[in-house]
């Protein structure tokens, strides 16, 4: 469907390299940049969704607040001013990072990692399902909006020459943010070319009738099957090759492997704009273990995988933004079981070389009771939609608010401005 586009890209790309080579000024990085730009490789948004409501307060820690340790007698992290070997890593005068995120701290020092605090949904729900739903559809309190916000972006900006891998996920199910009318590839694993051959003919030749019960569903299954055949072959090629380099720095975990595979596809310049990775298991009602327990182990995996990804992509991170989010934060007070219950305001991370300033973004009110939401949670001072809007504006130059991508939402008076234009 996009042969002519591919051919054009190939030619113009090699012509540019040829010219540079003649000038004799080519270096490894400028070659990369030329390839990156000239092959039409788009900027890429990588969303990582922590399902379960990650405990923001033990990830980005307000270490100067006396109340922090008071309200969390068994699960507070030791502050950076202590001698504890597991002390938090200071970012500025107010905040420190969980020690498991040491890679993030290094990126922060380089101005490539932006923590965003007290961010979340204006809707008060504390249900995992509703909160995720509203967030992924960027339509808090609007059950009638049924498409994912990333899918709406893709649909809104589609062209006839869209590459097949413009948006993909490497997991069995599409996250809700990518559900909708725009076709997104979900490829959980490799499938042998041989197996695909068995079904190729029957799927490509089969048709559906216009009428009759079950015909609509049959049509959906057929088109799913066809795109599976087309895309899997391509993905097999990309992920299967080049397994020697880059891999070794990733943690040997399922998430690490997925990040490594995402990097391979981005580096192959297939025009990928959006991918999402789901990461489950952040609902720590008991024995939270922020250092070496349940939360700590997960954070280390998350941090190490993303840091390895940023290293792997190197200069390409000028055009790749990783956005880490969760459906809500958790109660400021720990509960009766060394854990926390569902809260309100949470935290996000933006990682990339387009971060505008080295600082923590968002408004902080402190942990005194009157400043908490309903006397128990962090407030939401930044609507998640403003982060979403700024991300796609910075990466793709697309003004989602103006285009109506976010129903019933208008521009904030004071946007975060955490990203430069790519």
């Amino acid at each position, binding site marked *: 469907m996009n042969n002519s586009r591919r051919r054009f890209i190939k030619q113009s790309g090699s012509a540019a390299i040829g010219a540079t080579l003649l000038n004799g000024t080519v270096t490894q990085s400028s070659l990369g940049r030329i390839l990156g730009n000239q092959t039409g490789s788009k900027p890429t948004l990588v969303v990582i969704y922590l399902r379960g409501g990650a405990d923001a307060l033990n990830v980005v820690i307000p270490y100067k607040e006396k109340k922090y340790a008071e309200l969390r007698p068994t699960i507070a992290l030791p502050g950076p001013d202590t001698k504890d070997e597991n002390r938090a890593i200071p970012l500025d005068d107010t905040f420190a990072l969980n020690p498991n995120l040491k890679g993030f701290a290094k990126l922060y020092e380089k101005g490539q990692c932006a923590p965003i605090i007290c961010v979340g949904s204006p809707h008060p729900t504390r249900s995992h399902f509703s909160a995720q739903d509203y967030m992924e559809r960027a339509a808090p309190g609007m059950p009638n909006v049924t498409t994912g916000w990333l899918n709406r972006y893709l649909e809104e900006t589609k062209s006839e020459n869209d590459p097949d891998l413009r948006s993909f996920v490497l997991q069995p199910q599409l996250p809700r943010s990518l559900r909708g009318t725009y076709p997104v590839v979900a490829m959980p694993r490799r499938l042998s070319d041989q197996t695909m051959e068995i079904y190729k003919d*029957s799927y490509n030749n089969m048709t559906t009738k216009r009428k009759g019960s079950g015909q609509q569903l049959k049509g959906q*299954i057929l088109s799913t099957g066809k795109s599976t055949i087309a895309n899997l072959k391509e993905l097999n090629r990309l992920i299967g090759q080049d397994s020697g380099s880059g891999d070794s720095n990733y943690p040997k975990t399922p998430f690490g492997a997925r990040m490594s595979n995402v990097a391979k596809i981005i580096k192959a310049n297939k025009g990928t704009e959006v991918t999402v990775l789901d990461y489950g298991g952040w609902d720590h009602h*008991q024995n939270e273990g922020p250092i070496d327990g349940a939360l700590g182990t997960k954070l280390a995996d998350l941090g190490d995988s993303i840091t390895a990804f940023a290293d792997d992509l190197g200069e390409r991170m000028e055009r790749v933004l990783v956005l880490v989010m969760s459906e809500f934060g958790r109660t400021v007070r720990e509960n009766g*079981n060394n854990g926390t219950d569902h809260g309100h305001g949470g935290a996000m991370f933006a990682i990339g070389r387009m971060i505008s300033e080295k600082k923590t973004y968002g408004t902080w009110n402190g942990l005194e009771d009157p400043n908490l939401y309903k006397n128990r949670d962090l407030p939401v001072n930044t609507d998640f939609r403003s982060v979403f809007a700024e991300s796609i504006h910075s990466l793709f130059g697309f003004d989602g608010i103006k285009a109506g991508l976010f129903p019933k939402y208008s521009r904030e008076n004071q946007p975060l401005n955490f990203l430069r234009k790519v």
Partner: protein
Amino acid sequence: MKPINCTFLLALLMSCFLLPTVLVQAENATPLTPREQAIHALNRMSFGPQPGQVDRVSKMGWEKWAERQLEPESIDDGELDKRLKENNPSLFMGSHEIEQNYMPERLSKEEQKNLSAEERQKLNKKRNQLRGKLGNELISSVIVRAAQSERQFQEVIVEFWRNHLNVYLPKVRYAANHYEQNVIRKHAFGKFEELIMASAKHPAMLIYLDNHISKSSGLNENYARELMELHTLGVDNHYTQEDVVELARVLTGWTCGRKKGEDGLNTYGFIFNPRFHDKNSAKIVGLEIEGDGGLGDGEKIVLHLARHKGTAQYVSTKLCRYLVSDNPSQELIDRVTQVFLKTNGDLRKVYRAIIFSDEFMMRENFKTKFKTPFEFVISWLRAANAPVKQTGTIARTLTEMGQPIYMCDVPTGYSDQAEAWLDPGVMAYRWECSVNYTQVLAKRGAVSPQVESWKKLPPRKMAEKVRNMLIPGEPVESAVSMLMKGEGLRGMAQLALGSPAFQQQ
């Protein structure tokens, strides 16, 4: 051009536009043929037809078959029970017996201290083995029963409640087998409020959602929230965050521990611990609790929630979605809700109201549901009449497809709507599964002699047989021409199982 021609042309033009809609309506208005009715009943009230079953049900009339399925006790399942008792004995054990058989001997602190490193390792290994065996017995029983029980509607319904009252096996290893048998299966054809009460008082649910450690001095809201959001009222339906906290308070003390059972044995199970309990008054979803009725206060509120009209609506909607259509009509939901309320949640009557509604057998609902991975795998085991022995392989396949048995880690359970499963990559797994399983079956010679004899048939005849067995709802001509592209019997079976038709029910 004369005016009359214009009008004529306009009429012609209009009829072109209108015709398709009219036709669709006309087509959907045609009642299903007896054969189609049999296929539909077998698709929705069982995990798919076995060889020859469509003919049998269509001959006896689907209603008669459904009547029997709605009264599972009337169907003899003795042979399967016997096999389960041999291979999956833990399902039939009390908590005490499970402990005795699946936990290594408990050592005193002194004894533990004196263990050498080697002995300790050995003990750990033994514990893991026994625990693994216990989990495997549960998972394999789910697969075997779904595939081979004669009480198919019971299995379909049990799968619904297993999902509605989801627990996560890795968190409740010693309690899940007992939960499956004594909560889900025991009450699936009883009263809704008894089902909910049984789940509320079972260690599997109390531990899974952390209520066993919730105390007046340190509340845990997890179970209280999900009891209202997922088990009874539905999300943000009739309750607020204040209700969640109040309910959590009333349910403090609902925990697990050891007590003497009726058999005089010291058994781990549900207990009410007054020392954990919040004795204050509370108001939850309109019900005032005076406080310190102890266990009784919690029981009152659980019943109040189970009997609430919001619960009747929510549960009826879910059941209609599961059995009839991803988007059931509001009229149907309302009617079923009325039955739910009038019968005080008599589930048997609720199922009956759905199955014998006009909507259930309407053509517009025929083949319109996309099978979940579980339904896909089980239905093809049934269609191929495959011996269900290697349940480990089947369980692993389901894990890869994103629906591992008893391992949904979110309390929501798995979605029963196509939207959640019909993802772009979904066919990759199903194709791989179709290819692998047909190979395995062929290698083991595990195909019935009757099917074996089809190998000698000419391709067309063979394709007809395969169509009748695996995709009986498909029109003969298109099915046969598709199947004839496959090489031999195995090739045709692979094509049928991986075809769109086999994913629909």
